[in-house]
């Protein structure tokens, strides 16, 4: 098992408009990309569980070969920039992905 942070070059989160937060994981070579993709670890069900979200809030969960990337998009909690906001830019929601173990 290897942590995702050891395999990826970029792991980040950011707003995609005020109602969604999107996560990008980028790899530098096709073999690593294929290893993570084929491991079956990054699924909507597992990632919803990791983020304590309902699986219906997973809008996109896909590998994208042209950019050697994985993308996850979740519906955001609450109103962006409104009362109770925790992360206006959505830029610090990526950390749980760092430690996802990949066989």
């Amino acid at each position: 098992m290897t942590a995702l942070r050891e395999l990826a070059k970029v792991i980040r989160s950011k707003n995609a408009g005020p109602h969604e937060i999107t996560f990008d994981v980028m790899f530098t070579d096709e073999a690593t990309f294929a290893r993570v993709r084929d491991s079956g670890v990054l699924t909507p069900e597992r990632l919803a569980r990791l983020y304590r979200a309902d699986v219906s809030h997973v809008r996109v969960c896909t590998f994208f070969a042209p950019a050697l990337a994985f993308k996850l998009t979740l519906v955001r909690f609450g109103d962006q920039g409104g009362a109770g906001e925790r992360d206006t830019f959505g830029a610090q929601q990526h950390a749980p992905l760092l430690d996802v173990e990949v066989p």
Partner: protein
Amino acid sequence: MSGEVTVLTPTGMLGYGYREADFESCVRAGVDAIVVDSGSTDPGPSMLGLGHTLVTEESYLRDLRPMVRAVHRHRIPLLIGSAGGAGTDEQVDQMVELLRRIAVEQGIALRVAAIYSQLPRSVVRERLAQGRIEPNARGELPSESDVDSSEAVVAQIGAEPFEAALSGPVDVVVAGRAYDPAPYAAFLVPRGIEPGIAWHIGKILECGGVCAEPKGGGALATARADSFDIKPMGPEQRCTPLSVAAHTLYENSRPDLLAGPGGVLDVGGCAYEQLDERTVRVSGSRFEPTPRRLIKVEGAAITGHRCIFIGGIHDPVLIGQLDDFLARVEAETAELHPELAAGSASVRFHVYGRDAVMGQREPNPVPGHEVGILGEVVAETPEAAKAICTSARIGVLHLNYPGQLATAGNLALPLTPLDNPIGPVCAFSLYHLMEADGLEHAVVREEVGA
């Protein structure tokens, strides 16, 4: 260089600053236009709701001066999207006024075209009633009161109003709220660049040098009919296929199809090739026009007034029972302030050092040896918010708890005043696609300066 067009974006956001020497050397080497984005919804709804600009006037002036000099010296246009942050009509006028000041300072005349994209609430209300507004990403349609309560409503314009502004003699185009890549497409497509290439350049360059390693500063793209080359403005940075491909995905829900006004950019078949040490060539971008013209409508409403306090807790006895303790503080505060039970006011605690960033999404809820508490109170008036905030802060400071040894106070307070009103709270009341047929965006031309 026939058939090639170069556009330069010196910074990802007007007012964030950039290295003037790098900018000058790029301009001297030859660029055909300078494009810079000035707005975003990322900082939240308060710019639109309160009319605040993203940075100060001084920062705008500092960033604009070298660009205006380049415009004048090299007779190349400068295109500014989403003026001021939210792109309201007032912020467009403020930006034009800053350009006037710079033109006077530099003793030059500037031909400015201003594009206004604020919408009357009545237009949105009417189209809502006609079923011509689509649900947002959460599947919600706005209510009539969402429309009526909006302090301002702007439409994210596409390329057409920029093309109209560029169709006459112009030095600077200042646009209200605009889809970030739109000014790039408006400049490039009429110069023979494939729409897919033009929109893809816009998607990458609107953030300046974020597509480079290390990220930051500016970037420039040289386009030809069916491909483009992208490189960072700073000589110590480089673009790589990964950094450029990564940026194509940035801030989009999907990695392959990027929807905007007028069509969808399909980057599913793109190739990224390292051309030299710092430059990447991109090809294969496709643009599919959409038959129905839709426009993104943004509105922001004031939902209350906020007062905050901040402090630290180091006592392990208290940290060990913090959730129970804060629930008791909230209950005691509600006894003093009936607005809390009635739902017209709220108290929230953000516990830094334990789940403050991710909240209920936090998979690893482990407390540290100290935690920070941000108390956030929202109420209908600033006075009510301050009164409730003071009660909540006194509660956290002095409420007793089981096992207490430290009886002098529960909170290390770094700030005086202890309770700080921070103004109105806004929320996006509208962020929806609306049918755009029949909507016109005024382009106003004037000459400023000498």
